[in-house]
């Protein structure tokens, strides 16, 4: 297996949630949470998915995890098309596609012990043959994420936020996955704890070169730090995707620029010289997105043709892709 082999390929993914009304549940509209998203992820790579709330980044992740069944589009994981599999057909893939959720409080069952949370995937997929092997594997997972195996009998609320997220990571690693969808894994944690978790995720990947992350977050600095490539989403679509350094040094899409300029840098000397782009208005509702380019209502560069057709994601060189007519 080469390092550049594609592990995940998402093509024109759409996820619409019907809005129903009345007793009979008549469909009156669709929330277009994800509206034609395509990207590829190589083995051992980290792809960051950034955007503001409601941009569809979490929904995209949940489609890959098949928590949602996509409305249309294909998801190819390790050469297999998985978007249309039934729950039973998909179950074997759940060993290979794992996840870390945002909230270390609600993503762990409060009535299970830490040990049984971490060991649950092993039981579900019958990966251990004996009680002793199970215990040994759980202890190994605890040590991998820097937790003391002696604490396996405690329940989640006896752990701190950072420790809870470590339990979540240990659970994600239980079946030795090749892809982990990390959905805002650090945003609920204190700043001094965030770095511990980021470093842990990086160390795990350094120890297993085949491990890929789909890293979903709204914190651009963190995404830049951890990702090899970054995709920026706005209202259900990817507007820009490129190498993470390139994105920060040479952002091309007007939305990416505004987003980057909105993130303050912890250095007043740098802040004095930075350009600040303050966007007008708010993100429109995905129930009724603007025609054409979804961003045109708030865009400084917008012209009439921007409201006509949705711009395609086009390569402007070196794998830097932008969806904007003005670039």
């Amino acid at each position, binding site marked *: 297996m080469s390092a550049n082999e594609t592990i995940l390929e998402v093509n024109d993914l759409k996820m619409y949630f019907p809005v129903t009304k009345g007793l009979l549940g008549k469909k009156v509209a669709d929330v277009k949470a994800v509206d034609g998203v395509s990207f590829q992820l190589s083995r051992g790579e980290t792809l960051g998915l950034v955007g503001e709330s409601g941009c569809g980044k979490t929904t995209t992740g949940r489609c890959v995890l098949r928590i949602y069944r996509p409305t249309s589009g294909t998801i190819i994981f390790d050469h297999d098309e998985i978007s249309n599999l039934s729950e039973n057909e998909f179950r074997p893939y759940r060993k290979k596609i794992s996840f870390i959720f945002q909230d270390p409080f609600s993503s762990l069952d409060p009535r299970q012990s830490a040990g049984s949370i971490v060991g649950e995937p092993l039981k579900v997929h019958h990966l251990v043959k004996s009680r002793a092997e199970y215990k040994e594997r759980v202890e190994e997972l605890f040590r991998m994420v820097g937790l003391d195996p002696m604490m396996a009998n405690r329940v989640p609320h006896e752990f*701190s936020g950072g420790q809870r997220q470590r339990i979540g990571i240990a659970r994600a690693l239980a079946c030795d996955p090749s892809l982990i969808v990390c959905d805002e894994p650090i945003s609920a944690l204190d700043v001094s704890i965030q770095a511990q978790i980021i*470093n842990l995720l990086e160390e795990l990947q350094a120890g297993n070169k085949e491990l890929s992350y789909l890293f979903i977050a709204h914190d651009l600095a963190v995404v830049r730090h951890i990702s090899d490539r970054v995709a920026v989403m706005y209202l259900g679509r990817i507007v820009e995707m490129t190498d993470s350094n390139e994105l920060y040094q040479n952002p091309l899409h007007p939305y990416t620029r505004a987003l980057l300029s909105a993130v303050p840098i912890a250095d*007043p000397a740098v802040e004095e010289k930075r350009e600040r782009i303050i966007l007008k208005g*708010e993100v429109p509702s995905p129930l009724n997105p603007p025609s054409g380019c979804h961003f045109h209502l708030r865009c400084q560069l917008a012209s009439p043709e921007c409201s006509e057709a949705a711009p395609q994601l086009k390569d402007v060189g070196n794998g830097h892709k932008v969806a904007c007519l003005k670039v």
Partner: protein
Amino acid sequence: MAALLTVKGLQTHFNTDRGIVKAVDGVSYHIDPGETVGVVGESGCGKSVTQLSVLQLIPSPPGKTVGGEVVFEGRNILEYEANGAQMREIRGGKIAMIFQEPMTSLNPVLTIGRQLTEMMELHQGMGKAEARARAIELLGMVGIPDGAKRIDNYPHQFSGGMRQRVMIAMALSCSPKIVIADEPTTALDVTTQAQLLELMQNMMRRLGSSLVMVTHNLGVVARYANRIYVMYAGRIVESGDAKEIFGHPKHPYTIGLLSCVPRLDECGKKERKLVPIQGMPPALINMPKTCAFLPRCAYRTARCEQEVWPELRPVADRHYVRCFDDIGQANVCK
């Protein structure tokens, strides 16, 4: 220039069945007219409790401000009855507060207009019509278009960002001398955060008010604050001008905070590994007399383990640090 607000040795304790939590343990600071002050720290460091104590908003029991004074306009306002007329006049009228969660800070069953005009009628003795006209004007000032129509809407009809704009309008309605913003944009997206912070900064300049910005986000403070207080375990561990603090951080905790957060303008994991602060913040119960940061400190010496945690001492012009040693680390981010 005389300080607008001076806090001296403020102590707020909470009684729990595990013991007394010293959430704020001897905090002194001041706010000058027209400046923006950042109060930075992690959750549980006492930054919010300090601000609530100043306005006597600590729920009691279990909390109680047991010591210190808060001097505002020449009077120690801690002596006022917590819900008395004098305190109410200060709260909202002269010192306004903006909370983190705009949904729960607004009453869901009253219109925005009612909530806005109530304050003005109460504090400034305006008539109904006058207050309403002023409320519509305020909504326009905070960037809510079509205020005349929106004023009769209920909070749930606004988005999170819009609700926080309403909160800002409410805070500013009586032209306060000081606005205390407790994590005002933490629950919001970055572009909305930028919109609101910019708005707040402009409004403060217009009114000539001082802004106290309580946050864990170092970037926000770097962008907007003139002066910064860094809090840890219920005390101020470092204070000074923003440029000084970020350019020459002296306290190990400040240095730790700056080096554990990835910065947007620096390269990724291949170039710099983040340096986390080990361990966790202390529980603030039965704290030892020594430095509270000691168990997590990368620079600790034998002296730290033997002697009592020192008071803040000056290290440069208007730059104070609560540490024995001169830890000279130029900008950690370079």
